[in-house]
């Protein structure tokens, strides 16, 4: 039943980018200061990414895959699911702590859509984070930034995480 401890199989180049960074690094509360920066990440997103996310999440709103529909409702083009962007942004935190179960709270405001053109390049979501406060119970608040095409796409993006 159990698999050997190798990297999990992946079938897409877009998801293998930095997998070696994750899962083993542990961050100790005592080693973290206010202002400590988390490793920044870039997450590519193209139309295939959105179709795949639609299937996995069950969100089949056509604004995320149908250009004609998106333009009819006043959008510049197909846009990424806000929840996709939210899922990518927290990876900066979960890759930093290693344990996704360390996330105690996580919230964002969707300030602008991530526009995903059908041009074989798609879009890129750039995410950064830094420790904004040390809290009780070995927890810290991490403030995240997320931009695409130079525009801020998430506001008030904050996570509270429990460290070792």
């Amino acid at each position, binding site marked *: 039943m159990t*698999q050997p401890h190798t990297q999990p199989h992946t079938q897409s180049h877009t998801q293998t*980018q930095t997998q070696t960074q994750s899962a083993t690094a542990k961050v100790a509360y005592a080693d973290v200061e206010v202002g400590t920066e988390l490793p920044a990440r870039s997450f590519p997103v193209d139309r295939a990414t959105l179709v795949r996310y639609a299937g*996995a999440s069950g969100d089949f709103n056509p604004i995320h895959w149908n250009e004609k529909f998106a333009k009819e409702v006043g959008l510049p083009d197909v846009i990424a699911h806000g929840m996709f962007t939210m899922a990518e942004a927290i990876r900066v935190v*979960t890759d930093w702590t290693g344990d996704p*179960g360390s996330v105690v709270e996580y*919230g*964002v405001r969707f300030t602008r859509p991530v526009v995903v053109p059908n041009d074989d390049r798609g879009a890129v979501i750039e995410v950064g984070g830094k420790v904004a406060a040390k809290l009780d119970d070995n927890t810290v608040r991490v403030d995240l930034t997320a931009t695409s095409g130079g525009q801020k796409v998430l506001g008030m993006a904050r996570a509270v995480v429990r460290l070792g």
Partner: protein
Amino acid sequence: MALDQSFVGRTYPPTAPYEVGREKIREFAEAVGDANPAYTDAEAAKSLGHPDVIAPPTFVFSITFKAAGQVIEDPQLGLDYSRVVHGDQKFAYVRPVRAGDRLTVTSTIEAIKSMAGNDILDIRGEVHDEAGEHVVTAWTKLVARAAEEA
């Protein structure tokens, strides 16, 4: 038209249980490109102290948003879903969602506001497991944009 303020505080009946499957977690993790083994390898998850593979933090939204459909589609509330955008999202976790969980969601309308013709609806979804233990709370802010005048 502004939504009826008397709906604030209304709680809808708990949903039928959603059973969290290992392969659904894997599918979601692959869709967001996250190769963290805690999502796919039970041994890796156990080494972090979890009894089975866990789900990425935002996975539970699919469950809570489906539950929020009771609110969104409540004909008495009368929200125009064709004009709705997702404003804010927040989660507070007691523990991570994991494979084998059977989760029910209880949705409550926390607030209704009207700003510049937009209707703003705050829905809280309380997620409990089969034992009745609280797992996570999800807050979803929906904004129904004002209808354009003809």
